[in-house]
Every structure is written in structure tokens, then in C-alpha cells.
């Protein structure tokens, strides 16, 4: 469904993506992790054409986009629009349109891009709001909603375009912990319904439960990838091990006697299972 071939992208003199290749099948859920500045967000933005790239190729479904610098031809633009309308994107900062109510946010793109009638769009929009558990908030403005509610509206807005692929760029990292779960539950449900999802997140419980594949990226390269369980329990690379230590300190921080344990203490298993917010028991 998504093919990324040898993607290279630089901002000024800083190389952010250093030849990334990725193949994602239909219905597959892939989680990208990596230290900040590693290029995972840029990768999503390149796939969605919010960034141009220097070389390589991106393909979503049957629409392929080549590297391009400078002016886009009419053909390129049309392809870009088509690609974007098939790819939904959820942003870290929600980016809801503040001058529109929740339902107006959702029906805007179907009406302007797909030229749906208003009644058609509203009907579908209300269904989507119900799906994310917010049908009673249809006429609320974003400023009247909590962060978690805003992000769920944003997901419904992306779904309204009936995308084939959903990209999530740290969808819960701007949220208070108690609000994350509602958003993650919506994402879980989407994944279980077979949506093709590429997710940048630090929510390891979500990754463990839902990801078919976990990819660790550092310095613009894929360091290691595989089933989430395998990567977390037996990371091959030292860089992956170190990163996983930094990302999953929650149980460890609450260690005995209130003392933060030395990073060398505890196994990955501890960290891994401690990362589950719902306190599930160790499996196996």
C-alpha cells in the first residue's frame, strides 16, 4: 500500500532522511519510533507531500511521486492532490480549524474537494463523530473541547475523506495522560477494522498491542525493524536498546523506595510490561 524507496531529504545542510526504504502492506499497522530529530515525522510529511524530498520515490496505492525540486508541473500537482486525498494525516497539535464547529471541520474537505452535498457530508460526518464517541459535540467549537476530544475530531476529519492510509504524527504527545486513552482507543478500533496505519508514537502499549511491525529510526536511517514484541524484548542493536531505555522509564521511575533505578538495572521485559498503562500482567 505504501512504498518508500531510498528517500533522501535535507534541510539546508542537515540531512534528515538518509536513504529510507519501506514497504507497507494493505491493512498493516506500522509504528515508527526513534529519538527526536531522527526523521520519523519528516518521513510522514514526505509521504503526504507536505515536504518535498531530494531523491527517492514515494508510492501510495498506484500513485507514485518522484523527488522534485522547485516548480511543480500541472501533472505533478494533480498527482499530489490525488495522493493527499487518499492519505489521512493526524497531527500532534490537532490543527483543527478554530473558526468551524466540529461537524464543520469534518464536512469541509468532502464538500470542497469531493463536492459532496451538505446533507450527504453531514450525515457521514455525524456517523464519524459517533465512531469517535463525540456525536453530542457536533456543534462545539474546537476551543470548547478538551485536547483529547479535539484529536478525536481531527481523526474523524481525516476519515471523512475516506483515506486508504492513515498517518499519525505523535497523536497523543500533546495530551495529558488521562486524555490519551480515548484517542488511543479510537486508533485501536481503526486498526482492528483493517485500516492501513503508519504511526509515530511513544505509546509502547499501543505498539505492543496493535503494531504488526515496529521500526526504529535514527539519524535518518532505519536501524532495525520487526514484530514489536521481538524488537522490544530482543533488540539487536545497542542504539535500539539505549533508546528503549529512555522511552520507557515509567515503572522504573516509580521504583522501590522512590529512588530512580540506574538504567542498567531491570530488564527490557520489566520496562516493556511496565509501559502498559492498563496494568496488564506479563504475558508468557
Amino acid at each position, binding site marked *: 500500500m505504501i512504498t518508500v524507496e531510498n528517500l533522501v531529504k535535507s534541510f539546508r545542510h542537515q540531512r534528515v532522511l538518509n536513504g529510507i526504504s519501506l514497504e507497507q502492506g494493505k491493512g498493516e499497522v506500522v509504528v515508527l519510533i526513534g529519538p527526536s530529530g531522527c526523521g520519523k515525522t519528516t518521513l510522514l510529511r514526505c509521504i503526504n507531500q507536505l515536504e518535498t524530498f531530494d531523491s527517492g520515490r514515494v508510492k501510495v496505492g498506484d500513485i507514485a511521486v518522484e523527488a522534485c525540486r522547485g516548480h511543480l508541473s500541472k501533472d505533478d500537482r494533480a498527482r499530489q492532490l490525488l495522493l493527499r486525498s487518499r492519505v489521512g494525516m493526524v497531527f500532534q497539535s490537532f490543527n483543527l480549524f478554530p473558526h468551524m464547529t466540529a461537524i464543520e471541520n469534518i464536512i469541509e474537505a468532502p464538500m470542497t474537494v469531493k463536492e459532496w452535498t451538505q446533507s450527504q457530508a453531514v450525515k457521514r460526518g455525524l456517523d464519524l463523530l459517533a465512531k469517535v464517541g463525540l456525536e453530542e459535540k457536533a456543534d462545539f467549537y474546537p476551543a470548547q473541547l478538551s485536547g483529547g476530544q479535539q484529536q478525536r475530531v481531527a481523526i474523524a476529519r*481525516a476519515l471523512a475523506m475516506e483515506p486508504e492510509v492513515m498517518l499519525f504524527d505523535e497523536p497523543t504527545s500533546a495530551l495529558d495522560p488521562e486524555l490519551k486513552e480515548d484517542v488511543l482507543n479510537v486508533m485501536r478500533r481503526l486498526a482492528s477494522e483493517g485500516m492501513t496505519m503508519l504511526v509515530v508514537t511513544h505509546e509502547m502499549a499501543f505498539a505492543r498491542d496493535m503494531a504488526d511491525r515496529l521500526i526504529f529510526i535514527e539519524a535518518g536511517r532505519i536501524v532495525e525493524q520487526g514484530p514489536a514484541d521481538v524488537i522490544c524484548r530482543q533488540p539487536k542493536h545497542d542504539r535500539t536498546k539505549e533508546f528503549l531505555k529512555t522511552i520507557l522509564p515509567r515503572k522504573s521511575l516509580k521504583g522501590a523506595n522512590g529512588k530512580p533505578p540506574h538504567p542498567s538495572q531491570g530488564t527490557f521485559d520489566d520496562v516493556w510490561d511496565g509501559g502498559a498503562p492498563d496494568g496488564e500482567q506479563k504475558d508468557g
Partner: protein
Amino acid sequence: MSLAAFALVVLAAGSFGGVLEEMKSRGFLRWGADAEGGAPYVFPDPKNPKLLIGFEVEIADALGEVLGVREEMVQNSWDGLVSALDRGSFDVILNGLEITPEHLGQIAMSRPYYAYTQQIVVLNDEEGVRNVESLKGKRVGVLSASVAHRLLEKMGGVDIRIYPGNVETCKDLKNKRIDATVMDLPIATHYAKPDPALKFAGKPFAVGYYGVGVRKGDKELLREVDKAIGRLIANGELKRIYKKWGLWDGEQERRLREYKPVADPGSQKVSTLREWRQYLPLLLKGAVVTVEISFMSMAVAVGLGLLLALGRLFGVAPVRWASTAYVEVFRGTPLLIQLYLIYYGLPNLGIRLSSLAAAVLGLGLNYAAYEAENYRAGIQAIPRGQMEAALSLGMTRWQALRRIVLPQAVRVVIPPISNDFIALFKDSSLVSVITMVELTKVYGMLATTTYDYMGLGLMTAAIYFALSYPASLAANYVERSLTYDHR
């Protein structure tokens, strides 16, 4: 008694008797005049613009010689010479100031040093104008507040166009925006006679006299000036000067000798506040023009400004450069110059706009530069994420702008734009230089005839405020009604 009159009395009392001595000890006769468009009276020498020349410069010099002092010219706009004399900006006015009951109501005037007549000037091929009566129904340009202006107003039936100077009337005559112009003969002699495209129509008419203006309290100075002028007539000095400037005709000497002083009519000061019923309608008529011009030019500014801002933010390189250049040039040059260029300059390129069109275009083009910057700031104040979210939903850049970014930006730019609207509303007074008679111009014209700058000024200011305050209330209302982050 109005405040202005009170101030006048205090000033006059304070300066009583002392001016002549003060002038002699200073060694200078300070005379007020306007050198702008002032040929052949007082004007910068075209060969050496630092040097002022003109027949009045030579008269001042000759007067000073008789009085035993040197002369020093003080620049002041012609409209404001009388009130500036009252304020004590200079000792005398020597600048084609006509001896009229209006002036004598305000200041004292010497015996005449020149007998002027009015002259009609038309285009070379104009045959229909033979005398002042035949001007009825024609468009006639006059200098604001001049004798010609009052004569034609009194006669009635003439489409009078008011200009800031006589250079402009001659220019617009050639631009065919007016059919004729009437001016004092010396001006006609200097500006129109040498111009092959123009000719004098009919004989000079309406004899009047230029005198030296002196404050009413300065009786001693007035006597000295009268004596000095008598001396210059007798010894042929004036004749020599007028001959040099081509202003001498056989009648001049006879007229100067036969002059009978006009009786001092006493103070003619009008309290316009007490008789507001008479003046308010005139001011309101001007206010209508002000409002018309403001709304039309703001529409131009807001529309063009948006295009410029979009061009600057999202255009391809040449569009971006052009928009940026436009903003910088129109912001970086004075509105007054732009108005002059559009109205008096463009006809050189064959573009002749009516004064209303030129006013709307001038103000609109100028303010478009400011509105473009307001829009640009407003659009840039909208977080990038808004555009990106819209693009990621498959919208085109234009759809995203129109549906997502601009509606939010509009709310941001309403306060600065309404601020600019109020500024434009007041700046619209500048269009009087291109013959639009709007509120400030009406005020100026009434004030120079009634001398009640205070009463009329208060009325005029009140009208401006009464119009601009509701505009800012309306802007507040719109801004509030567009608020969407209500909680």
C-alpha cells in the same frame, strides 16, 4: 466674542506701538509671503532656486531702503497669511493681498502699491468666451479664496473648480478639464502669456488694489509704509520695477494716484458658532464628499491590498517581486506627491482622470500598500498547521487559503484595517489639491472668508468625529461577532 477674537485683541494690545522701533533695532523688515506658485510676485529663481526673485521682492527691498532697514521674507501659505500676521509671525504682508472689506475687517492695509485687474485665460482655439458673462455654464478654474473665486461665486451660474495654485489651473486648462481660468493680470502675464497654447480672452476687468497688510494696532508702522509707497510712486521706482516685470500699462499710475481708500468697515468677524445654521449645511455638503471618497478608496485599498498580499506570500517569483516593490514604493512616497502625479502628471501620458477618479485611485493605491501589509501579517499570524491540515485533506492551496486561512486572517486584520480606514478618512482632506471640495476644503474656504478658524474648526472637527467614531464602533462590533473562541 469668540476665543480667536479675544486672542487677537490681546495680541494687538501687546504689540501696540512697539513694532516700528523693534523692526528698526532689528534691522529687518520681515514680510510674509508665499513663494509656492508665487511668480511673478515672489518665487525661487529658476536659475538659482536658493534665491527668491519677483516684483514684490524688489518692492520689499525698495520699501526697506526708504524705511532704513533690510528685508527678510517669511514663507507662509497664502491662505494663512492674515492669521499668521495676527499671530505675529512677521511685521507685514506683502503678497498680492487685495484691499477688500473682508481683509480690512481683519487687519489694516496700506495705500495700494499695485492696481490689478482680472484676466480670463482660455485655450487658443476657444472662441466662445469674450467677457465674464460668457463664462456662465462653463467650467472655470480659480485659485482658492482668490478675488476671481469670489467674483464668479457672486455672479453665479459658473461651474467653479478650485485649485491650490495658478500653475495647476493653466495645466488643467490644457488638459481640457476646465474651459477657462480667471486670474489676476500679473499672474496671467507671467504664466499664460508666454504659453502659445493659451490666450487672453476679453479685456481685463474688475480693478482692485494690492496693499501691504499691517496689524490693526501698528498705526505708526502703517503710516510709515504709506509714506514709503507714496515715495516709490513719486520717484518712479515702482514704475521701473513694473516695467521690468512686464506689468506696466498706461493705466497703472493713474489708478494708483486716484485710489480712494475704502472705509474701514470695523470688525467684520463673524461668529460662525452662533450662526451655525448658515455654515453647517455647507460643511455637511463637504462631509458627504469626504465620506464618498473614503468609502470608494477604501474599497480599492482592501481589494487590491489582498491581491498584493497573496502575490507577495504565494506568488511565483516575478509576482512576488512586483508586489513587494509596489508596497515599498507606495508606502515610501508621500500621498500628496502620488495625487499630484495621478491628476496633473498622468495627462502627460494621455491619461486624463476626473478629479473624483484621481482622488479615489490615489488614496486607494496608496492605502492598498498598507492593507497588503496588514493582510500579510494577518495571514502569517495563522499557524502553519492550519494550511498543512487543509492540504493534507486534499484541498488545493487556493481552497485552503479561501476556506481556512483567510477567514481566520480576516478577524486578525479587522482592527488594523479599521484603524487605517479612520486614518484614510482624515487623509482624504489631501485630495483638495486636485480640486475636490471636501470637508477640510470647505472649512478652509469658509475660514478664510469669516476668519473664524476656531468656531468653524470646532464644527468641522465635530463632523469628522461624528463620522469616524461610529466607524470604529462598527469595527468593534464586527470583530466581536467574528469571535469563535467563545468558551
